[in-house]
C-alpha cells in the first residue's frame, strides 16, 4: 500500500502540462489492472483534489481519473463501480467550464465499458445536452463530444433510440453551426446515420497545413444528403433551386446530388419532378458555355433517365416528349443543333429502352436529312450523330445484330458510300465512323470495306483522310488481325515509290498489334534490302517505327532478322552508289537503325557484333561515308565494352571532309566517345589528339568543321561536368570574335536534338549541367564585357536561344544589362529573334524583372516594331507589347498614349502579318482602363 501511496502523490505533484503526467496516469492504470491498487482506493486518494474548492485542483483530479479510465480495459470495472463513476461524472458536467474538458475526456471510456447498466448512458447524455453548450467549447473538446455521441450510437443503439426526439434535438443543437473543417469532415462521414443539412460557408485558410478543400466537404456532404430514400422530397427541390441559381459551384453540386440521389432515392420522387428537372437541365445545356458543366448536365440526364426507366411506360412517354421537343432543333444550321444532339445521345445511353426508342425515332430523320443535305460539314455532323446513336443502340441491346433492324442496316452502307465521296471531310467522317462500328459489322460488309481500304491505302490522300485510314486500319487489325494481314499481303504496289511509301506506312502502322509485328517487320526489312530506291523509303519508316517502340522491335530485329550484319553488308555493297548530298536522310536512317537496335543488346552481344562489323569495314577507311556506319555502330555502345576505337581516324575524316553532313555525324560521334571515355589518361590523350587536329584544321581553312568538333567536344565535357570544359568553351569564345559560326556553336550546348549524346546511349549526364554551364559562361561574359566585345552579345543571344526557361529566369537579373544591350545593338536577326522570344516568355510569365524594366523593354520593343527590317522581329516585338497590356494598371497608364501613338504607325506596315499583330496590340492597349 505504501508503494502505491507514493505513486499517487507522484501524480498529484506533477502539473498537468508535464510530459510525465500522462505516463504516470497510465502506470496507475496498470497497477489497477494488476490488482495492486483498487479503483475505489484511487477515488478515495483523489478525494481531496476532486472536492477541492480551487478550480485548478478539481480539474487536475478529474483529469487524472479520466486518463486512468482511458487506459483501463473495457471489462475491468463492475456495474456498481460504474454506477458510482457515472453519477459522479454526470454531476461534474455541471461544474465550472474549466473542469468540463477533463470530464469530457472520461466519458468515452465509461460508455465503452461492457458492464455499464441500462439507463446510465442516457443519464450521461442528458446531462451533457443539458449542461454543456457544445459550440462554446474548443475544437478538440467538441471533437470529444462528437466521439462520445458516436460511441454511444455504436454501442448502445437501442437505448439511444428510446431517447427519440430528445436525442435528435440534442445532437442537432450540438453540431449546429459547427465551422471547423476537421470536425465537419468527421461529422459528414458519420452523419449518414444522422443527418442534418449544414449550411456550408467555409474557405480553407492558406496557412493550414492539412487544408481541407471545399470539394472535400461537398463530396462528403453529398452521401449524407442521399443517405435515406425519405430525404428525396427535400433534396430534389433543393437541387432544382440551386441549379437555377447563377452560381457555377452551386450548379455543379446540385448536379452531383441528383446523380448520387439516383442510388437511393425512390423513383416516384424523380417522376414527380421529372418535367421540371428536364426543363432546367435542358436550359442549362442550351445556354452554358462551360464544358465541364455541360458534361455534368449530360451525365445527370443519363442517370436520370436510367433511374426513370425502372418504370417502363413512364420513361417511354417522357423520352417521346423529349424527342418531340428536340426534333425541331435538328437542323444542322441551327444554333441549337449541337446541344440538342448531345442531349439525345446522353438520353439514349440511359437504358436499352431509351436507346431503342431514340434510335427508332431519330435515325430515319437523320438518314433522311443526311440524304438531302449538301453542305459537307453538315453532312459529317449528321453522320457522326447517326453512328453514335447506332453504336449506343447496339451496345445496350446486345442481342440485336446490325443487320436485324431496318434502320441500323443502312448505317454501314451510308458510311461505305461516304468513304468514296468527293468531299474530303465526308470521306474522313465515313472512314472514322466505319471504324467506330468495327465491333458490330458483319463479315460480308467488312469485305466491302476491305476492298475500299486496300485501294485507299496506296492512294495519296489529304492528311486528315490519311490519318483516318491508318487509325481505321489499326482498329480493325486489333479485332480481325488475320483479315488485315491477308489484305495487306495482297496489296499490289506497282505505281512507283509514292504508293510503296504509303503501303509501307500502313504496314508499319500495325506493328503495335502483337500478332502482326513479325509480319509487319518482315515486309519492312525485305524492302530495306531491296533496290536503293525502295530502301530509301523503307529505312525511313523502319527507323520511325523503331523510335516509337524501341526495345521490343530492336530485340525482334536482332534475333530474327540479324539486322546489324545485313545493314553493314548492304552498305558495303552499295557504297559506290551513295552520294551524301542525295542520300543523307537515308544514310542517317540506317545509322540510326543500327544505333537503336544495338542499344538494347547485352554487353557481350554488342561487343561480338560490333567487333565483327568493324573488321568488315576497315577496307573503306579512307572513305568519308565510313563515319556514318561508325556512328551507327559506336554511338550506343555500353561504356564498359571492350571495343578499340581509333579516334585519330575519326577526327581526321571529320575535320578534312568537304561534306558538312559527314562532319556533323563525325562531331557528334566524337562527342559521344569523349563523354563515355572513363579512363582519365585515355581521355587526356584523346583530347590532345582532337586539339591538335582542330588547330591544324583552323589553319588550313577547315574552320567550320574544326569549330563543330570543338563545340561538340565542349558539350560532351560539359555534360559530364569535366574540369576541362572551360578550356574548350574559352576556345569558342575567342574564336567567335572572328567567326560567326563559333558564336552560333553556343546554340548546340542546350540543344537536346543531338540524339547521339542521349543518356539512352549510355552517355554520362550530370545533374543540373545546363544550369552550371549557363551560369559559368554568363558570369564570364558579364564580368569581361566592354564595348569592344560586341561578339559577347551574339554569344549571349545564341545561348539564350535554347537554354531552358527556368534556368534563364534564375540568371536573368545578372544578365539583364547585356540582354537590353543585345536588343539595341544586335544586327543578327536570328539572334535578335531568339532574344525576343526568350524575353517574351518572361513577360508572359509576369516576372518581377519584366515589370521593373517595363519602360526600357517597351522602348526597345516599340523601336524594333517600327523600324526593324525583318518582319519576324517586328511581329515578335508586337507580341511582347500585347502581353504587356495585361500588366498592373499603374505601370501601364503613363505609357498608354505613347504606345498607342507608335502602334498607329505599325497599323500601316507593309506586311500583312505585322499589321495583324499591330491590330491585336493596339486593341488590347485601347482597352486598358476603358469601361468594359
Amino acid at each position, binding site marked *: 500500500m505504501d508503494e502505491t501511496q507514493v505513486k499517487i502523490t507522484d501524480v498529484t505533484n506533477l502539473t498537468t502540462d508535464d510530459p510525465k503526467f500522462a505516463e504516470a496516469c497510465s502506470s496507475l492504470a496498470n497497477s489497477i489492472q494488476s490488482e495492486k491498487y483498487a479503483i475505489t482506493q484511487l477515488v478515495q486518494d483523489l478525494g481531496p483534489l476532486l472536492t477541492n474548492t480551487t478550480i485548478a485542483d478539481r480539474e487536475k483530479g478529474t483529469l487524472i481519473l479520466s486518463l486512468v479510465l482511458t487506459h483501463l480495459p473495457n471489462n475491468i470495472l463492475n456495474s456498481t463501480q460504474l454506477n458510482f463513476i457515472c453519477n459522479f461524472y454526470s454531476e461534474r458536467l455541471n461544474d465550472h467550464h474549466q473542469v468540463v474538458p477533463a470530464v469530457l475526456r472520461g466519458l468515452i471510456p465509461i460508455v465503452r465499458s461492457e458492464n455499464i447498466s441500462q439507463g446510465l448512458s442516457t443519464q450521461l447524455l442528458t446531462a451533457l445536452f443539458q449542461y454543456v453548450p457544445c459550440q462554446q467549447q474548443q475544437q478538440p473538446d467538441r471533437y470529444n463530444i462528437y466521439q462520445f455521441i458516436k460511441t454511444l450510437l455504436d454501442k448502445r443503439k437501442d437505448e439511444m433510440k428510446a431517447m427519440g426526439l430528445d436525442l435528435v434535438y440534442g445532437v442537432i443543437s450540438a453540431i449546429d453551426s459547427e465551422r471547423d473543417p476537421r470536425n465537419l469532415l468527421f461529422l459528414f462521414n458519420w452523419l449518414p446515420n444522422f443527418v442534418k443539412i449544414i449550411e456550408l460557408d467555409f474557405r480553407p485558410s492558406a496557412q493550414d497545413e492539412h487544408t481541407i478543400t471545399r470539394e472535400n466537404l461537398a463530396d462528403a456532404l453529398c452521401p449524407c444528403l442521399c443517405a435515406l430514400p425519405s430525404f428525396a422530397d427535400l433534396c430534389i427541390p433543393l437541387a432544382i433551386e440551386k441549379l437555377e441559381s447563377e452560381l457555377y459551384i452551386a450548379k455543379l453540386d446540385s448536379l452531383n446530388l441528383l446523380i448520387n440521389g439516383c442510388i437511393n432515392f425512390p423513383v416516384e420522387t424523380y417522376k414527380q419532378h421529372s418535367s421540371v428537372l428536364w426543363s432546367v437541365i435542358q436550359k442549362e445545356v442550351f445556354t452554358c*458555355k462551360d464544358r465541364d458543366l455541360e458534361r455534368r448536365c449530360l451525365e445527370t440526364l443519363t442517370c436520370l433517365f436510367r433511374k426513370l426507366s425502372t418504370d417502363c411506360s413512364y420513361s417511354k412517354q417522357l423520352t417521346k416528349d423529349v424527342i418531340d421537343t428536340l426534333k425541331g*432543333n435538328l437542323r444542322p*444550321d*441551327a*444554333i*441549337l443543333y449541337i446541344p440538342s444532339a448531345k442531349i439525345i445521345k446522353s438520353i439514349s445511353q440511359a437504358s436499352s429502352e431509351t436507346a431503342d426508342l431514340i434510335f427508332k425515332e431519330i435515325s430515319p430523320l437523320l438518314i433522311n436529312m443526311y440524304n438531302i443535305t449538301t453542305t459537307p*460539314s453538315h453532312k459529317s455532323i449528321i453522320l457522326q450523330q447517326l453512328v453514335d446513336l447506332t453504336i449506343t443502340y447496339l451496345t445496350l441491346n446486345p442481342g440485336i445484330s446490325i443487320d436485324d433492324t431496318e434502320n441500323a442496316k443502312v448505317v454501314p452502307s451510308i458510311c461505305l458510300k461516304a468513304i468514296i465521296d468527293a468531299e474530303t471531310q465526308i470521306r474522313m467522317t465515313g472512314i472514322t465512323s466505319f471504324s467506330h462500328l468495327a465491333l458490330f459489322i458483319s463479315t460480308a460488309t467488312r469485305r466491302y470495306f476491305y476492298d475500299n481500304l486496300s485501294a485507299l491505302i496506296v492512294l495519296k490522300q489529304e492528311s486528315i483522310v490519311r490519318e483516318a485510314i491508318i487509325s481505321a486500319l489499326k482498329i480493325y487489325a486489333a479485332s480481325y488481325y488475320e483479315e488485315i494481314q491477308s489484305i495487306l499481303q495482297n496489296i499490289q504496289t506497282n505505281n512507283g515509290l509514292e504508293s510503296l511509301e504509303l503501303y509501307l506506312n500502313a504496314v508499319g502502322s500495325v506493328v503495335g498489334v502483337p500478332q502482326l509485328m513479325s509480319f509487319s517487320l518482315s515486309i519492312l526489312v525485305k524492302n530495306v534490302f531491296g533496290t536503293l530506291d525502295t530502301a530509301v523509303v523503307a529505312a525511313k519508316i523502319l527507323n520511325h517505327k523503331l523510335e516509337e517502340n524501341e526495345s521490343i522491335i530492336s530485340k525482334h530485329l536482332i534475333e530474327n532478322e540479324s539486322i546489324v550484319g545485313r545493314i553493314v553488308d548492304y552498305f558495303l555493297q552499295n557504297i559506290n552508289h551513295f552520294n551524301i548530298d542525295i542520300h543523307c536522310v537515308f544514310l542517317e536512317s540506317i545509322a540510326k537503325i543500327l544505333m537503336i537496335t544495338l542499344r538494347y543488346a547485352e554487353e557481350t552481344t554488342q561487343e561480338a557484333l560490333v567487333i565483327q562489323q568493324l573488321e568488315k569495314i576497315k577496307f573503306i577507311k579512307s572513305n568519308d561515308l565510313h563515319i556514318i556506319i561508325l556512328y551507327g555502330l559506336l554511338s550506343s555502345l555500353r561504356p564498359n565494352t571492350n571495343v578499340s576505337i581509333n579516334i585519330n581516324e575519326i577526327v581526321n575524316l571529320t575535320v578534312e571532309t568537304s561534306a558538312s553532313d559527314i562532319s556533323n555525324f563525325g562531331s557528334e560521334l566524337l562527342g559521344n566517345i569523349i563523354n563515355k571515355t572513363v579512363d582519365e589518361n585515355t581521355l587526356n590523350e584523346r583530347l590532345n589528339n582532337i586539339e591538335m587536329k582542330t588547330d591544324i584544321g583552323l589553319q588550313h581553312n577547315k574552320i567550320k568543321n574544326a569549330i563543330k568538333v570543338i563545340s561538340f567536344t565542349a558539350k560532351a565535357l560539359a555534360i559530364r561536368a569535366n574540369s576541362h570544359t572551360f578550356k574548350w568553351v574559352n576556345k569558342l569564345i575567342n574564336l567567335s570574335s572572328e567567326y560567326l559560326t563559333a558564336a552560333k556553336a553556343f546554340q548546340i550546348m542546350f540543344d537536346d536534338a543531338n540524339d547521339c549524346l542521349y543518356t539512352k546511349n549510355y552517355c554520362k549526364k550530370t545533374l543540373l549541367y545546363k544550369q552550371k554551364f549557363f551560369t559559368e559562361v554568363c558570369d564570364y561574359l558579364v564580368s569581361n564585357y566592354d564595348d569592344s566585345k560586341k561578339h559577347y552579345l551574339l554569344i549571349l543571344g545564341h545561348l539564350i536561344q535554347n537554354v531552358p526557361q527556368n534556368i534563364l529566369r534564375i540568371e536573368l537579373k545578372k544578365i539583364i544589362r547585356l540582354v537590353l544591350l543585345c536588343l539595341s545593338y544586335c544586327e543578327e536577326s536570328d539572334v535578335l529573334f531568339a532574344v525576343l522570344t526568350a524575353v517574351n516568355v518572361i513577360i508572359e510569365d509576369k516576372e518581377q524583372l519584366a515589370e521593373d524594366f517595363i519602360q526600357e523593354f517597351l522602348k526597345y520593343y516599340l523601336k524594333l516594331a517600327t523600324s526593324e*527590317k*525583318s*518582319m519576324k522581329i517586328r511581329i515578335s516585338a508586337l507580341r511582347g507589347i500585347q502581353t504587356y497590356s495585361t500588366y498592373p494598371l499603374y505601370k501601364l497608364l503613363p505609357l498608354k498614349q505613347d504606345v498607342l501613338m507608335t502602334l*498607329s504607325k505599325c*497599323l*500601316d506596315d*507593309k*506586311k*500583312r*502579318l505585322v*499589321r*495583324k499583330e499591330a*491590330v491585336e496590340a*493596339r*486593341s488590347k492597349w*485601347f*482597352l486598358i482602363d*476603358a*469601361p*468594359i
Partner: protein
Amino acid sequence: MELENVNPNIYSKIDDRLITLEEEDDDVEDEFDAREIFDLIRGITDPEHPLTLEELHVLEESLIEVDNKDNIVKVLYTPTIPHCSMATLIGLSIRVKLLRCLPARFKVTVEINPGTHVSENSVNKQLADKERVAAALENVHLIKVINQCISTK
C-alpha cells in the same frame, strides 16, 4: 431581357487565312484587301448571342470593298432580322473597331446592306454622322457594350 431572335441560324466560320509565300517575303508589299478587313471585324460578337458576326452572316467578305489607292473602305452588313433593334449598335461596333485598327489614311463607311432592315436609312445616317458617333462614344454605358462586343474573339 427577352431575346428578339431565339434560335438564329449559325453558319460555319471560314478557315484562317492561309499565309502565302509572298506574305512571308520581307521584300513584297502586301496591300489591304477585303479579306483583311473582314478578318479585322469578323470576330466582333453579337450583343444578344455569344456568337460572332461572321457566324450569323451579319458580315460577309463579299460585301466589303477596299480601294488602296484612294484610301477608301466600305463595309455593308446584314442584320439577322429586318426589325433588329441592335442594328445601330452592331454598326457602331464595326465602326469603332475599324477606327482603332485601320491606319488613319482610310475613309471608312459602314452601312446596312440595302433592303435588309426596316429603318435602313436612319441607321445609315446615324453611322455616317461623325459627331453623333463621337457623342455616342462619350456615353459610358454604350462604350462599355461596344468594348465588350469588339474585345472578345
